[in-house]
């Protein structure tokens, strides 16, 4: 039996030694412990007498403490003990570099990781930490498993059935430049000519590229034809790509879960530094700290021009550019146990982003037609056509999709936002896909204006989760990220509020939670890794604090849930009665101007019944025509839009202009 001498060189504390002693005895080791305040001489003297195979020291590092620890190591060498006993150290502020400087054989950083200690005692190589039981248990979460998607509220089910039938009937036979480009992209990937540097089949590549560029905006055409890069974009150098494996080689695999008990929720974090190499670093750090999934975020401008770039590209501002090469590069480094979500509702490039994500190994998608069609987003007509296409593709590839409810950030009340999520849920289910609604847990403008969270943030957030359990048996994934608008520039404050929201979501049975980096809202630049770790650590501590205990619905929360349920039903009834989903978005039934929501404009009038129709739409003359139509929409008051979908004449613009004037 191996003998281990445990020595707290701390003058007072020996808790770590006591804990380690218990664990080692349980693991079958013979141990001896020294009391707090032991001197290096006493440790070595005991070692010479008892002859352990290892001496493990616990000590918090501070100034002049290094010299004490150095003396211990020197004494071990001088006494000859070092020839038979290996030396390990752990404690606050101890790092591997400090351990090396002090001359120890092993350093145990952070909280006690018994497999790591056992590996050291058994003389296994450091890389044997892959055997960390927590690392081995790391498996990709299946967020939809076990859910029946049965509607418990039959009134809502019936309304959704009517709404989704109308959407599918309306979208039938329609196409867009986005859909056509997605088909070309898929063909390019299938033919092996999706990258500009691909060898062979140059004729195939050129033919498909010509077709593709015929459906693209001028910025994208300039990229492919004139090698013009958008502002702030550069190609990654080969050495930047080649060096990454070396940088990651010494990374420590595995880490504790963020969860303290149970298998839910899975924790997702967003990345999108602009640089794929940096993204990988962020992902690896987040994985090491226990996140279960990562979400790709790209620049907002990528959603507003027709067509996608290609190649390994870096972007000096927020968001990493969607290209097949960037996706595949990032995915190559994502741990097999980490889920990868690609945000698909990328405006004019929604279907194409899905194709690239699917071809690169995405596990989950993200799409919400009403949310993507508002604010600075895409024209509702266009995104509905593209969105339906994507849901069909998601079903075909078996990729679950989450449905973000971030329109609440614009001021949309939760009942309208949730109505949208329910429509998207039912629409996907009807097409054979598996949806995961993302109700936003946040301190939204609506809550601020109406004082719904003046007393606390628990009741309303619990109600927002409870209402889903009343309506449908579906996985619920609060995001995105949780605690939105509770964050301030103070990193501690941001970490705490995020962690509180995550704990609440966990208590309420969420299947997954997306959380932010504590400097996400206020970083004024790239999100920093320490801030990410802050949030993860805070969340882990909060979950440790709550364990299996639960938040309970108070009478106030029960009342809020009931009110929310009724209001959602009322919104869905109005949308169903309107009989035109796209018109309902234009008219603000799912969030109107008073809520701070405006229909998106990108890609207006780019829907056609077939590819030939598209070519006509995209001709130079047609673009002038579209611009004219767009102006009509901008100038006409919302109440005039009842006739959406009908052909409007030139007079409409004049009438609208007069009206506004």
């Amino acid at each position, binding site marked *: 039996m191996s003998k281990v001498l445990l020595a707290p060189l701390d003058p007072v504390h020996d808790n770590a030694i006591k804990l380690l002693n218990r664990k080692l005895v349980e693991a079958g080791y013979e141990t001896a412990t020294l009391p707090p305040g032991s001197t290096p*001489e*006493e440790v*070595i*003297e005991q070692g*010479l*007498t008892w002859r352990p195979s290892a001496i493990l020291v616990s000590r918090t*590092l*501070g*100034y*002049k*403490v*290094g*010299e004490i*620890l*150095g*003396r211990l*190591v*020197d*004494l071990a*060498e*001088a*006494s*000859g003990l*070092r*020839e038979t006993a290996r030396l390990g150290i752990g404690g606050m*502020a101890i*790092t*591997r*570099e*400090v*351990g*090396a*400087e*002090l*001359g*120890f*054989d*092993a*350093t145990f950083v952070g909280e006690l990781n018994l497999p790591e200690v056992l590996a050291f005692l058994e003389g296994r*190589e*450091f890389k044997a930490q892959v055997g960390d039981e927590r690392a081995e248990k790391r498996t990709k979460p299946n967020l939809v498993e076990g859910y029946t998607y049965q509607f418990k509220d039959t009134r809502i089910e019936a309304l959704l059935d009517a709404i989704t039938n109308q959407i599918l009937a309306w979208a039938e036979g329609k196409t867009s430049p986005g859909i056509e480009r997605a088909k070309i992209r898929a063909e390019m990937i299938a033919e092996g000519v999706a990258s500009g540097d691909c060898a062979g089949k140059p004729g195939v590549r050129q033919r498909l590229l010509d077709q593709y560029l015929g459906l693209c905006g001028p910025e994208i055409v300039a990229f492919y034809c004139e090698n013009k890069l958008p502002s702030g974009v550069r190609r990654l150098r080969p050495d930047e790509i080649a060096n990454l494996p*070396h940088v990651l*080689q*010494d990374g420590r695999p595995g880490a504790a879960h963020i969860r303290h008990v149970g298998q839910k929720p899975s924790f997702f974090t967003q990345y999108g530094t602009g640089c794929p190499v940096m993204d990988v670093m962020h992902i690896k750090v987040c994985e090491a700290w226990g996140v279960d999934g990562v979400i790709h975020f790209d620049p907002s401008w990528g959603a507003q021009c027709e067509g996608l770039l290609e190649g390994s590209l870096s972007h000096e501002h927020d968001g990493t550019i969607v290209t097949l090469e960037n996706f595949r590069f990032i995915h190559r480094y994502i741990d097999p146990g980490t889920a990868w979500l690609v945000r698909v509702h990328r405006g004019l490039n929604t279907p194409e982003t899905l194709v690239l994500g699917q071809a690169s190994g995405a596990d989950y998608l993200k799409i919400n037609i009403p949310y993507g069609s508002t604010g600075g987003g895409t024209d509702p007509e266009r995104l509905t056509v593209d969105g339906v296409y994507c849901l069909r593709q998601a079903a075909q590839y078996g990729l679950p999709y989450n449905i973000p409810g971030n329109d609440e950030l614009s001021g949309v009340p939760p009942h309208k936002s949730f109505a949208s999520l329910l429509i998207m849920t039912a629409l996907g289910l009807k097409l054979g896909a598996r949806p995961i609604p993302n109700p936003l847990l946040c301190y939204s403008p609506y809550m601020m204006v109406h004082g719904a969270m003046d007393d606390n943030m628990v009741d309303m957030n619990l109600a927002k989760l409870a209402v889903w359990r009343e309506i449908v048996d579906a996985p619920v994934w609060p995001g995105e990220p949780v605690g939105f608008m509770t964050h301030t520039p103070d990193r501690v404050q941001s970490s705490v509020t995020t962690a509180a929201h995550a704990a609440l979501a966990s208590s309420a049975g969420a299947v997954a939670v997306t959380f932010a980096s504590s400097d996400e809202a206020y970083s004024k630049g790239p999100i920093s890794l320490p801030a990410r770790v802050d949030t993860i650590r805070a969340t882990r501590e909060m979950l440790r604090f709550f364990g299996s205990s639960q938040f309970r619905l108070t009478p106030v929360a029960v009342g809020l849930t009931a009110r929310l349920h009724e209001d959602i039903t009322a919104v869905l009834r109005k949308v169903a009665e309107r009989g035109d989903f796209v018109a309902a978005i234009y008219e603000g039934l799912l969030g109107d101007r008073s809520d701070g929501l405006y229909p998106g404009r990108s890609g207006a009038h780019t829907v056609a019944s077939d590819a030939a129709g598209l070519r006509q739409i995209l001709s130079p003359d047609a673009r002038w025509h579209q611009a004219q139509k767009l102006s009509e929409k901008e100038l006409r008051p919302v109440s005039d839009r009842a006739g959406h979908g009908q052909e409007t004449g030139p007079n409409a613009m004049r009438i609208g202009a007069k009206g506004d004037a």
Partner: protein
Amino acid sequence: MRAIGVAGTAKNTGKTTTALEIIRQSAEAGLRTALTSIGYDGEDKDTITGLPKPRYYLPPGMYVATSERCLRAGSAGYTVKAATTVRTILGRIVVAEIDEPGLVVVAGPNRGVDLRLILDIFENLGTDLAIVDGALNRIVPMISTDGLVLATGAALDERIACVARHARAIHEIFAPGRAADSSAWGQRISIRADRGHVTELETGSLLGEDTALQIHRLIHGPVRDLVIPGACDPRLIERLLDHGLNCLREARLVLGSPLKLLASGDPLAWSSLLTEAYGRGQLVEYIEKIPLLFMTVNPFYPRYLPYAQAYEPANVNKCELLAAVQDEVPGLPVFDIKQPPGPDLLSLLHRSTKGTQSHGT
């Protein structure tokens, strides 16, 4: 090949600055130089105080023994010349030749046995001068080198007089010579009676009262030699002497090495013990010997700011520090590397060789 250890009395006493100056002069002289460390050196900020610290910037042609991971972390270009079986917390150690000048992170062998292996590799590669960087106050593995350079300064103690007294004590520890019969002694504490009979203890180190009491019980008459090859706490020898073991007062004291003494106890305590021993006419010798070649002093120290829970750089008077230490160690060259005129360190490194000094009563 000559191997030189650069050790410090504490963190931030100027080991790296001294080693960098030796490297600079070696490069100018066209010597093939090699570098390793018994710890870790390469961060641009101190791991404890957070204050800036010098880094190793190595010229082409130099050898370095460090972990593979640390090599990649530096900016110098390199070619790996030899892989070793020596492993540290930061990975396996390799020996590399610097191709392009740049910063190097050095994390070398932390045990004496491993250091010897690395020095053998340096020698086989045709190295003229090998430099072994110390780590904090750690010093014992340096016994594998041919001579020691010691860095001290205000980081040890902000009181100049204390630094100077400490330096004198260290100098005195290095004074005794190597025992002519050093090879006759093993790894255990041995007591040779006046009549020649030798009694051995199980242990080689004197660090606890139990061992001291064992020695006490074994001594029944005049002692010719008391041999303690391992670590030794000077207070326990004093206690033996104080508790009626007059027969020890005339015995020759054979200790492991000056480095083991430095590791085992306060140099001032050793200095006091040695002075008293010499006063009694007692002979003190070492089993292993290493010369102290010169000292460097550094006026810098990290001043702790309790209200900020941080450190700030501070300095004592550099001229006073240098003069005080020089006064306390007559015969031993002492420099402040940053104070002109710059010393010719290479000539000092070649001044003496291991085991040739003769000291005693």
